[in-house]
């Protein structure tokens, strides 16, 4: 498949943007297919997806196999909502930038990852009140049908906890 489905000048033809993020290591067709299916019946959002070399030709979103980090950051920062796999890059970036985020964990039973750590991460972060999680298609549809109501979680600053930084710098400089 090519780098994108629609011509680039149509990407922002609608005023609201959903940016879909799968990480760079492996495709995530289950999540992309759900979003593509949902998108058939909506006309409010432009959907841009970073698809990690998916072989499916999604009809209702603008797809990129891979985006360079600076381009990726631009799409990320300009989006109204991020829908992503439960990768830490996605989660932390959303928290840093106070973005609306829904994560959809990769599962080993669909061969989407080597183990189910994304599922456990999602549970752990949900407990901390830091993310919105869709565990299945029904959950994801519910969020997509009511994007306005998706809560924005608290903003975090750019650095790790002081205690951790001190531990590392003490070790380095001893």
């Amino acid at each position, binding site marked *: 498949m090519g780098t994108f489905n629609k011509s680039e000048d149509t990407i922002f033809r609608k005023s609201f943007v959903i940016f879909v993020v799968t990480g760079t290591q492996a495709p995530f067709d289950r999540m992309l297919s759900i979003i593509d299916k949902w998108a058939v019946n909506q006309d409010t959002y432009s959907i841009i997806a970073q698809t990690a070399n998916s072989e499916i030709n999604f009809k209702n979103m603008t797809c990129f196999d891979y985006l360079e980090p600076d381009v990726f950051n631009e799409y990320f920062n300009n989006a109204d909502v991020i829908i992503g796999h439960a990768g830490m*890059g996605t989660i932390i970036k959303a928290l840093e930038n106070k973005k609306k985020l829904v994560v959809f964990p990769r599962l080993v039973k669909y061969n989407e990852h080597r183990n189910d750590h994304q599922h456990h991460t999602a549970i752990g972060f949900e407990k901390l009140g830091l993310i919105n999680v869709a565990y299945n298609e029904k959950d994801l549809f519910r969020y997509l049908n009511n994007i306005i109501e998706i809560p924005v979680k608290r903003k975090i600053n750019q650095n790790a906890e002081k205690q951790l930084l001190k531990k590392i710098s003490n070790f380095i400089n001893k």
Partner: protein
Amino acid sequence: MKKILAISSSGGHWTQMQRITSSFSGNEVVYVSTLKGYVKEVSTCKYYQVKDASAWNKLNLIVLFFQLIKIIMNERPDIVISTGAAPGLFAIIISRFVGAKTIWLDSIANYEQISLSGKLAKYFTHLHLTQWEHLTNQKTQFSGKVL
């Protein structure tokens, strides 16, 4: 001033590394990761790109291993720190042969158990950290999160 080799895979591992860089201040830092574009994010430091490899692609693991031997022999770091995954584990093992002190900070993504590379790194690293208090044991310490 010490020379620090800070190595991580792309995505979340890299993001977490960027959140601890203030603890490196006053030292020389060399970054290693798997995406070419990251060079722009650490423009004041030296950056090496290595092969992206995991347990999923064994051949790339071998290529990666030899790339890292070359970098580490060339740079001779005093400290090697990694937030995972495979590239960091390899770098920590190799750097023991040049006498570096090593730090493993297991990714905050590993909530249920330490990652596979983190479990292996435990045998080679001087400071082994998890970001979840319930995963600590005799060797693995908790000292806060990258958030």
